[in-house]
């Protein structure tokens, strides 16, 4: 086992490539889906009834299907209607699209729980429209939803491993490469597991730090 572990660690450039790919894929998808989710949550809360219902239905369906299902739909079904995307575009857009639904629903929930007085006080001080949203509502939603968004970020990292099935060289894919070359399945995957644990623990730690900062600044 120890000898096999050295074999795996000897392939560290492969594993490092996979690790870095997973990192940037998750970071990019996380940031982009958060930005998208903010706009989608506006539709979910303020949209006119038809728009709101259609958006909510799309969000609900996305939250009810497995990520691999969406990935395959993007990967197999889009070419059938003559939309050809590279596997990277497929993978990233599926990940962003899927995660946006979850983020948007989390933001909608946080907004629903925001005390109404906040908005009224904002209006009383002359805030209105986008300014009111940007300065009063959004910051509080983000702080309140912080821990849940963090958990969803961890789910995003774990879903990103599905990208290996469309041969995107992420951490799981590269670990699987290493295991199939030397046939060291246990050790190769254990190293991958350790690296995933590192990523997820850092996210947890960041969320806890942010929570402490929010607490110091007077948010519960």
């Amino acid at each position, binding site marked *: 086992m120890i000898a096999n572990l050295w074999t795996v660690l000897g392939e560290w450039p492969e594993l490092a490539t996979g690790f870095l790919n997973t990192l940037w894929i998750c970071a990019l998808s996380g940031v982009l889906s958060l930005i998208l989710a903010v706009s989608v949550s506006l539709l979910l809360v303020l949209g006119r009834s038809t728009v709101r219902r259609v958006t909510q239905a799309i969000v609900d*369906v996305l939250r*009810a*299907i*497995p*990520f*691999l*299902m969406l990935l*395959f*739909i993007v990967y*197999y*079904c889009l*070419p*059938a*209607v003559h939309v050809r995307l590279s596997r990277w575009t497929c993978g990233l857009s599926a990940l962003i699209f899927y995660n946006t639904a979850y983020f948007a629903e989390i933001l909608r929930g946080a907004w629903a729980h925001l005390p109404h007085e906040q908005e009224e006080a904002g209006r009383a001080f002359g805030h209105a429209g986008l300014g009111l949203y940007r300065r009063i509502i959004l910051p509080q939603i983000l702080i309140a939803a912080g821990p849940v968004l963090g958990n969803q970020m*961890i789910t995003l*990292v*774990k*879903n*990103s*491993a*599905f990208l*290996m*099935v469309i041969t995107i060289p992420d*951490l*799981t894919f590269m*670990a*699987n490469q290493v*295991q199939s070359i030397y*046939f*060291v*399945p*246990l050790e190769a*995957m*254990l190293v*991958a*597991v*350790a690296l*995933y*644990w590192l*990523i*997820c*623990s850092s996210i947890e730690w960041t969320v806890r730090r942010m929570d402490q900062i929010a607490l110091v600044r007077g948010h519960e």
Partner: protein
Amino acid sequence: MAWTSLLSELAKGTVVTLTVSLAGIAAGMLSGLALALVRVGRVPVAAQAVTAYVSIIRATPMVTLALLIFFGMPALGVRMSPVLAAIVIISINTSVFQAEIWRASILDFPRGQLDAAHAGGMTSALTFRRIVFPQVWRASLPALVNEMTLVIKGSPAIAVIGVVDLTRVAVRWTTVTYEPIPPFLTATVIYVVVVMCLIRVQRSIERRIVARYGIL
């Protein structure tokens, strides 16, 4: 013709997805309870080991876990069929989440009832079986049903190790007929229906508990 055979294939896949998920959940429920009890009971060394184990498995993607178990276990001399491996994978994955659910409701349990049970002459085992477990079970049930939806959504990972579940049936159909849209859309509808049903079940359980006991 094509539609009926597609539907019967997808139905078989659905049965595989549901049986494997349910078997995994049942096994995960028991092992999750065991993990939670070790942690709550502060069993020396074992409690720390369980904490580390829970933390690691919670951070492990289902696919990575699937590859680890399916390829790694034979290297340790344990051979498993893909379906058995799938049940093991799902139960390992869900057990750590279920352990957290159990732990939360055990920690919430009012201590006064324990003292009352002891004063009434009950042994610890009897107290757990007759007093603690029924209430903890009730408090955990909605979260456990919620965990089922998460398991169903993670279950396509077992398609990667060759189990012909709902997702893999759709992929197979596509590679044979070159028509991806019918199988994938139908499979999507099936997943949505299954998950929505589970959410309904969860809501109705919550309502019944509130109606009968006043609180969740």
